[in-house]
């Protein structure tokens, strides 16, 4: 094992140490974070266990029992949160909607984060032509309207959950690329990197072992902020009719339908609106705390 390798391990070890400290901090010291972690785990559980939790079939329509207010009973079925514009049980759609909303947000953050970070680090590390190409590509993608990308993606690949993820990843990767690029540049002159260069570590090794651990904190902070945004973007795509396909429930889709019923059947939008709010709130608070913990701030 070379000196560089040891250094590298210490880089990841430091991360693990900080993570442990964070977990300890969350557990023992900072009780104020508990409710937010609880909300996130609750939604995650809802998403994972929806078939067992949901009180009814989220797709089952009842055209004669449409727009029933919360706590009503229709033909012997109790609807805790009422029914929607097609008479479907809102509570069940919330439970299943967690699945879609969390999956879309999680996957798009993962995809855009992985792509953006890799390109950003590569640009900063290799400099030269790659740097110019990647950073100009970032500019190009930042100036194409997201809606244009969305419509074209749907046109070429067809609609669906995976393509929503793709649309979001295509529009959001430049943010990660910029952060990764800036952070990598700021550590570029550090001795351990120069040393690793000197002993001839490969680009892949340099990036994975030496650079990534040093900038992962910043990326995680961006990712948590983006996570909340992705949930909202999915709602925006639903508003424009380009989101996850009906009848699959998603919180964003439910909210955008509910908008037209605010004045006549408020409960259609209330539940998904509250869930979206709680999710974005919890993710942001935890993200803020993470950023304090890593003592990193993102411009």
């Amino acid at each position: 094992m070379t000196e560089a390798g040891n250094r590298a391990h210490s880089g990841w070890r430091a991360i693990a140490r900080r993570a442990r400290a964070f977990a300890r901090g969350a557990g023992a010291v900072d009780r104020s974070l508990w409710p937010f972690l609880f909300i996130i785990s609750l939604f995650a559980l809802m998403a994972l266990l929806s078939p067992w939790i949901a009180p009814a079939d989220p797709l089952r329509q009842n055209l004669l029992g449409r727009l029933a207010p919360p706590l009503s009973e229709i033909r012997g079925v109790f609807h805790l949160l009422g029914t929607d514009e097609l008479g479907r049980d809102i509570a069940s759609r919330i439970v299943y909607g967690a699945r879609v909303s969390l999956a879309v947000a999680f996957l798009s953050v993962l995809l855009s984060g992985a792509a953006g970070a890799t390109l950003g680090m590569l640009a900063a590390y290799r400099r030269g032509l790659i740097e110019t190409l990647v950073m100009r590509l970032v500019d190009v993608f930042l100036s194409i309207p997201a809606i244009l990308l969305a419509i074209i993606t749907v046109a070429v690949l067809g609609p669906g959950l995976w393509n929503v993820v793709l649309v979001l990843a295509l529009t959001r990767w430049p943010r990660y690329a910029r952060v990764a690029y800036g952070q990598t540049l700021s550590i570029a002159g550090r001795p351990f990197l120069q040393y690793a260069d000197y002993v001839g570590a490969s680009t892949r090794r340099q990036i994975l072992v030496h650079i990534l651990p040093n900038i992962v904190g910043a990326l995680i902070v961006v990712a948590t902020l983006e996570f909340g945004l992705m949930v909202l973007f999915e709602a925006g795509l639903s508003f424009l009719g380009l989101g996850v396909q009906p009848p699959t429930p998603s919180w964003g889709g439910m909210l955008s339908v509910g908008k037209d019923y605010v004045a006549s059947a408020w409960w259609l939008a209330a539940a998904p609106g509250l869930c979206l709010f709680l999710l974005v709130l919890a993710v942001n608070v935890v993200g803020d705390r993470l950023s304090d913990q890593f003592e990193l701030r993102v411009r």
Partner: protein
Amino acid sequence: MKQQEVRLSRLALVVWVGAVAAFAGALADTAHADVKDRLVIDLAGEPSSLDPHMQWNPDSYYVYRNIFDNLYTRDDNGEIRGVLVEDHAYLDETRILLTIREGVRFHDGTPLTAEDAAYSIRRIFDPALGSPQTGQFNKIVDARAVDRNHVELTTDGPYPALFDQLVKLSVVPMHYVEAVGGDAFNRQPMGSGPYRFMRWRRGVDVTLTRNSDYWGDIGGFETVVFRAVPDMSTRVANLRSGASDLVVGLNADIVRQLHGRSGLKILTVNTTRVAYLRLNTLRPPLDDSRIRRAIAHAVDKEAIVAGLLDSYAEPSDVMVTPEQFGWARDVPAPAYDPGQARALVKAAGGAAKRPLVFATAPVFDARIVQALQQMLSDAGLDVRIETTDMANYLARVRDRGAQAPHLNFGRWSCACRDADNVLYPLLHSSSEWSAVLDGDLDAALETARGTLDADRRLRLYSEIHRRVAAESLLVPLYQTSVIYGARADLEWRPTPDESMFLNRMGWAP
């Protein structure tokens, strides 16, 4: 130094706040005193063109139709009535002489002559104009002014739907259009209609003023403003807050907000559009008539109309409405029978297990599409909704290849009163909008298109409806209605053609 900076940033802030306020102030001088002489109408979008020979999507049509006079119109009862044409006479089967009304003047005072009428017809075919409407009038091969008030039209064969098409033809002033050119004409349209064009603030609104010298019924409002308000909830909010007097494009659920509100009312009328489920008979498994029949049996039109549309629609078994020529009653269409549907699907075996792609677009009511999907799923079919924007949806529907969707939702809009304009494009094998290959059907459609004998045509269309029902080539769903929200004291009778004649509107005394 520091002090200076502070002052500078304060100055910047003041300038900025001032700029925003000044902009707001600039808007203020366009604010209006709320006078009853001003009617505000909220459309879903702004007109794409005010040149009547270019576009005729509803948002353009609502507006320019009031600036121009057409050769014919339909009265409130749907009867064709001459406007600029006083009389017509057939010279033979393909030539017709129109007598143009005298004493009509354009807004600049120039008299409207047969020359203008003939020019307007010829202008539509002019390849240099590139009008999307060309195809609507391509049966007319020539139009020429015989004298000051007579126009002779020549068609390329007997053409029963001619008058129905001429209802859509606006007459433009030849001298003006030729002098200023198409761009300036579109910017500053001038016609002979009951309202004059005043201004078009792009993206905001179009304002018309009353033509007090109009030869016919004079409009009831001094000025009329058409605004573009894309969101339906916002249009209703505008109506409720008193910002607008008439709003278009509402659905049955949103008008629940207007129920029981004093000062507001709901206006509705059944249109000439039939909502339908198109089955792609060219693509397996829908080439199997059993599965098509299963779909027809699985759809509960009554439940959709009563449950989802609050009966703002009429279940329909044919693709034509009673307001149109070619409608037929008592066509034996497959009735709602979920048991029969399930049995047919079962009988079809493995083929019925294939996933069916159901194409739709954001403009179509997603609730209806989902309800249909549920009904078909209940029959044992695997139906997947695919929403794409309108441009893609139309391309997919026209596609006849292996990628074409199995099913699509549609709402045929021919803005016409003749079955030919609905059935021919939807069913004739030569049309790209059709997914049917049926020689007998083609022959019947062609004969009906080229016959002037009304009784014979009615019999032919009745046959066609029966064949469509027997083979389940399409599933007609319901006659759609159009729903408007209005101030209670606005007197207006909406028409099935979704036109909006301002001079047939007024305030209740």
